[in-house]
């Protein structure tokens, strides 16, 4: 029997040379007349070890990494095909502490299976959720999701079950499921990883969503910079159609669900759900006002579920194991697990799926291994470019929507970006305005003009002009943007700005004592 060798096709691994490694392994195996089966799996999410090569052995999968093509000959020499020792040896994959400490529910298969193999998916508990769902009524499916306590992972943390229920109860001839795969937050990649590493789980989740609300058409609005995900998704969708998991009669149930991937317009704001819908309709990605909610008047004016990739990809396990099972993870009103994405100045960046409740410090130290530079970590931005900066004094806050909200911060899509002591928080505050100015759709006044004015006032602050007046102006402007903006882009830009001023006043030339806000 041929030996299974795994080399990830995840784009983070590819950017580190995984293709060359895979080619080198093939060539070497051929030269040595070794019978191997090369499988291009997803990534396990330990980026500092990528490209991480795994070999299936009697004891389980053994890992080596990070592997370069130059290492390939020596790996063969060391008989890595049978788990032989090598300087790059990582031991049994399942025993790697980073992975062992996680609770991988949504990411259960990522890195393990061949992403485009439907058989592999099914062999690893895939489509069990759908089979269960087909036995339930629409309302019962929605109830499972509601019971699970799942909240939207795209940022707003809105209970998914309640959203679905609204769509279920909205009478219409046509309804839609739209997957928000525009993943624009800096330092986030969980959506991409799951789409590249386990596309069927998303397809299954969307199919179940369709059954749950009575929608027959789904769209995946995919970030334009994700070409690999595009190919993998399309291939998986093809297979699913052929095997009857998609199409007009899903598994002979009489239910229809069609699915299509659409490439996004390439603007951050198009990740905002209403702007996304405009863009899907072929218009400029301009934010719509709410109400009407997309659940009532969404795509082409029809009731529409818009959910993040992770929200939808979590649905199969909920339907497989039950809402209760999922709900048992987590703390407070934050149930289940969150795929957290470590990035920035850390030794070990990558994907950590953990039940809610783990503290930021545990993440930074136990998983991240501290700063990459060796200097102390001074600030962490959680929840993407619109998330607050947290100082060291807040690192013990557990990952929990409400606990974060209490300290005027957000979890967002689960991105965690660390900065060491070399960071200039005034620059970061200016950058927040700049990001907003670049990404603003321009519809509403506070964001359209405010973001640019914010940059200008920050420049004045940084060059020491009328500091007190200008800081007061930044605060007033932040207040106007926070309360007046139409969507969270303008409305949350004050989070990074004000948290930077409040927690790091010294970077703005202010007295700590002065900042009593």
């Amino acid at each position: 029997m041929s030996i299974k060798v795994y080399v990830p096709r995840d784009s983070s691994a590819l950017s580190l040379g995984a293709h060359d490694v895979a080619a080198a392994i093939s060539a070497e195996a051929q030269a040595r007349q070794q019978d191997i089966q090369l499988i291009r799996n997803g990534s396990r999410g330990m980026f500092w070890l990528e490209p991480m090569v795994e070999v299936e052995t009697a004891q389980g999968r053994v890992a080596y990494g990070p592997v370069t093509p130059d290492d390939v000959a020596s790996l063969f020499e060391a008989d890595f095909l049978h788990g032989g020792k090598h300087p790059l040896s990582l031991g049994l994959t399942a025993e790697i502490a980073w992975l062992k400490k996680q609770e991988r529910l949504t990411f259960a298969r990522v890195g393990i299976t061949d992403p485009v193999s439907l058989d592999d998916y099914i062999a690893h508990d895939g489509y069990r959720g759908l089979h269960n769902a087909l036995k339930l009524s629409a309302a019962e499916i929605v109830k499972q999701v509601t019971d699970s306590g799942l909240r939207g992972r795209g940022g707003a943390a809105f209970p998914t079950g309640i959203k679905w229920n609204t769509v279920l109860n909205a009478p219409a001839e046509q309804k839609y499921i739209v997957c928000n795969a525009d993943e624009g937050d800096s330092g986030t990649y969980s959506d991409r990883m799951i789409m590249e590493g386990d596309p069927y789980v998303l397809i299954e989740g969307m199919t179940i969503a369709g059954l749950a609300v009575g929608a027959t058409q789904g769209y995946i609005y995919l970030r334009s910079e994700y070409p690999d995900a595009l190919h993998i998704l399309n291939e998986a969708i093809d297979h699913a159609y052929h095997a009857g998991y998609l199409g007009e009669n899903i598994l002979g149930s009489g239910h229809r669900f069609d699915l299509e991937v659409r490439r996004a317009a390439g603007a951050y704001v198009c990740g905002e759900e209403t702007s996304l819908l405009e863009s899907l309709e072929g218009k400029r990605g301009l934010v719509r006002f709410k109400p009407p909610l997309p659940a009532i008047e969404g795509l082409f004016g029809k009731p529409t579920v818009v959910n993040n990739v992770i929200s939808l990809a979590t649905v199969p396990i909920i339907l497989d194991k039950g809402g209760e099972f999922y709900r048992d993870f987590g703390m407070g009103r934050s149930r289940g697990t969150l795929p957290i994405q470590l990035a920035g100045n850390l030794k070990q960046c990558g994907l950590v799926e953990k039940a809610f409740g783990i503290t930021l410090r545990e993440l930074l130290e136990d998983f991240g291994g501290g700063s990459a530079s060796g200097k102390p970590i001074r600030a962490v931005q959680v929840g993407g470019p619109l998330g607050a900066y947290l100082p060291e004094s807040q690192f013990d806050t557990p990952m929990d929507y409400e606990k974060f909200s209490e300290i005027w911060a957000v979890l967002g899509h689960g991105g965690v970006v660390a900065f060491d002591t070399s960071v200039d928080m005034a620059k970061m505050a200016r950058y927040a305005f700049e990001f907003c100015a670049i990404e603003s759709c321009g519809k509403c006044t506070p964001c359209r003009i405010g973001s640019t004015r914010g940059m200008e006032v920050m420049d004045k602050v940084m060059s020491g002009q009328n500091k007190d007046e200008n800081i007061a102006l930044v605060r007033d402007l932040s207040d106007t943007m926070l309360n007046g903006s139409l969507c969270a882009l303008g409305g949350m830009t004050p989070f990074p700005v004000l948290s930077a001023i409040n927690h790091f006043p010294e970077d703005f030339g202010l007295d700590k004592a002065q900042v009593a806000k």
Partner: protein
Amino acid sequence: MKKPINQYTDYGTPASSSTEQVTLEIDGTSISVPAGSSIMHAAVAAGVSVPKLCATDSLEPFGSCRLCLVEIEGRRGYPASCTTPVAEGLKVKTQTPKLADIRRGVMELYISDHPLDCLTCATNGDCELQDMAGAVGLREVRYGYDGENHLQSEKDTSNPYFQFDPSKCIVCSRCVRACEEVQGTFALTIQGRGFESKVASGVTDFMDSECVSCGACVQACPTATLIEKSVVQHGVPDYSITTTCAYCGVGCSFDAQMKGEQVVRMIPSKHGGANHGHSCVKGRFAWGYATHKDRITTPMIRKSIHDAWQQVSWDEAIAYAASEISRINQQYGKASIGGITSSRCTNEEVYVTQKLIRAVLGTNNVDTCARVCHSPTGYGLKQTLGESAGTQTFDSVMHSDVIFVIGANPTDGHPVFGSQMKRRLREGAKLIVADPRQIDLVQSPHIRSDYHLKLRPGTNVALISAISHVIVTEGLVKEDFVRERCEWDSFEMWRDFAAKPENSPEALSEELGVPAEDLRAAARLYATGGNAAIYYGLGVTEHSQGSTMVMGIANIAMATGNVGREGVGVNPLRGQNNVQGSCDMGSMPHEFTGYRHVSDDATRALFEAAWGRPLSADPGLRIPNMLDAAIEGKFKALYCIGEDIAQSDPNTQHVTHALESMECVIVQDLFLNETAKFAHVFFPGASFLEKSGTFTNAERRISPVRRVMTPKNGMEDWEITAKLSTALGYPMQYGHASDILDEIAALTPTFRGVSFKKLDELGSVQWPCDDEHPTGTPIMHIDEFVRGKGKFFITQYVPTTEKVNGRYPLLLTTGRILSQYNVGAQTRRTDNVAWHKEDVLEIHPHDAEDRGIQEGDWVGISSRAGETVMRALITERVQPGVVYTTFHHPESGANVITTENSDWATNCPEFKVTAVQVNKVSQISDWQRNFKRFTEQQVNFVEQASKPANVS
């Protein structure tokens, strides 16, 4: 009726049509409003005004300025009142310290990118941005003015009527949305994102965009960014008087915004029953002709058309005219005298003119230009439904599921209604277009016709036969409706006729040039697609079988039950503003007001008693008869008001020959029009801005025309006619146009309840307006047809004798375009020429290639009637074998080519079909050369008249 210029309350968002009421509390005041209203709308209704910039009640809410935020008890944050719907029991606060802070913060941002020249700005005092800065108490802009800004943006002055100054733009998108939602042209977009967002039109400027200059964006703009050049020139107007557009049959209401005697701008009235605040380029902007230098304001007389004119006083002119009429009356008899009114005259003018002819001269020789446009409508609808008028109100289209446009081009001919129709089509109504040409509706932004039946000119009746055939043979007749509402016998006859194999789509397909399956599908859609409405225009009436086609249309509407409620009906789109009114007013030789035949003794007795003169029971001469009689030497004197038969009637050379044969031609007009060049007496007329009266539009809506400035010619037109009558020995004593309307109301049952007072109260009213319907009748034939039971008529297709042959192998059809109006006497004297400098001949690329014609070449167009020359425009809008032109410029001589063929029932000319040949030529035609020479001579005669030395 002077009103302040800001006379209307802006509710911020459109009214909700829900019947369910919701009660909420706003700033402590309880208010009930229809469900679906916005909080902003409710607040305004409760007398609370919420600051706003991006909202205005002609547009759907947008939610971008963020000034209108409010607090709602129990809800988080600060929702925008324009986008948040009301809900039962809400407690809303519109003024709190926090809201004041947010609003001031937003305003501070706005002003940080706005020029500080309010005092010298053209809209100073009429600017919403300025008002809001005051309302929110903005006192300083702490950002300074050295940041990034748009203050150096370049002005776009390309449009002749309005300018665009982006340095003042607040990017509220009201203009963009107005162009989309109200006008439906989609000429504007917001380009760029974030701070770079800006309004963009076309590639370089407005004139090179899709813009049709309707003015909706200008009106929607809350700042001076988009502003009428006339306001820049004259300043913000002082007061406003509501009047009615004098151009097309839509009959839009306008507020003439004035500064003293100066019209500063015309703003479409928000409460206009036909236009609801919308306009087209003509009514909105093209009124400058009233003060054009070509206008003649002093009466003139002359013995012969080869003499120079003599300027005289009004008394002299009237005495001279009266003496000539008397002389001719004595010499040739009363039958040799007649009058022609125009669809551009007010109802009152038409009424006094026909009264003069009938009562004073004792003949019925009076006709109107509706003869050449919609006379078949009057005839056909009277025969079938019982009333010579369209069945619906314009707003009815908003309830239509299927819209069937036949031989009409609403976006050009009836632009404001065209926009309303487009709005309904964007909402999802289906569209069938029957037209030889690809009119804009066939394919325009967000609209595409479901079927375009591109029939050959002249085959309308075959089309209606084919459609009727499908309806009766595929079981699509609404039999219960027909049984209850129509004459069953006539239905059976029609059914059996329509069912004949020779009327099947398959049999007629070749004649029509339309695939049989399209005909079948369109018929099915019309008959079964829900509320189906037919809109038709001159493409139906101006044919040898015009009346037959009108009846055919009424047949299918009755057979499918599409009459008598909202969303359906038979809707003639009238060309000129008062086509309906002038016909109503007894301007036709066989009818008194209200379509009562002159031979009807009771009616005649009524008028004889009222007018105190014996009246003739014999119908008088129609326009073509008058012209023929003139050539025969039997018709000698013509009083022609506001009509230019020498340009608008077919076979121009025949018309001018007739005019030359008359001894006294009296023309009453603003300009020396083509007919006036053959006149002996010229009575200068008053423009619509200088007189009072009423116009009746295509939906039977009577709207007031109000005098906003003193007549430059010294008199309103009805006064001239009254004076002439008095001089002829029949004193007409009216103090004001309203007295005439009162007389009309007293003598006409369908007008019984109409008066100036009522129009002041209601704005406008749709006849019948009587004791039973004191506020008018938007939809007719609801429970019963006016004639009792609807009557079907057999509509046998008879091909026109105007056929292509070896000599004249192409079919010419005519029409009009948006920016010009009819003979163009007015619009050619405005900046509208920027869009249409000359008439051109549209020709299909194949036909052009066959003849070696290139775009822009001079081409000769000849028919058996005559020849003229125009430039060629090569386009696939026309089908091979068909050429098309407009008739807005006299020198193009479009009607030199058209023939005297006409409708069998009403003599309406067959303008839409002329067999012609087209050839490449190098110079203008003989006719055009003569025309030029003659025009120069006549203009000279007028110039000589204005030289004091010549006045003796």
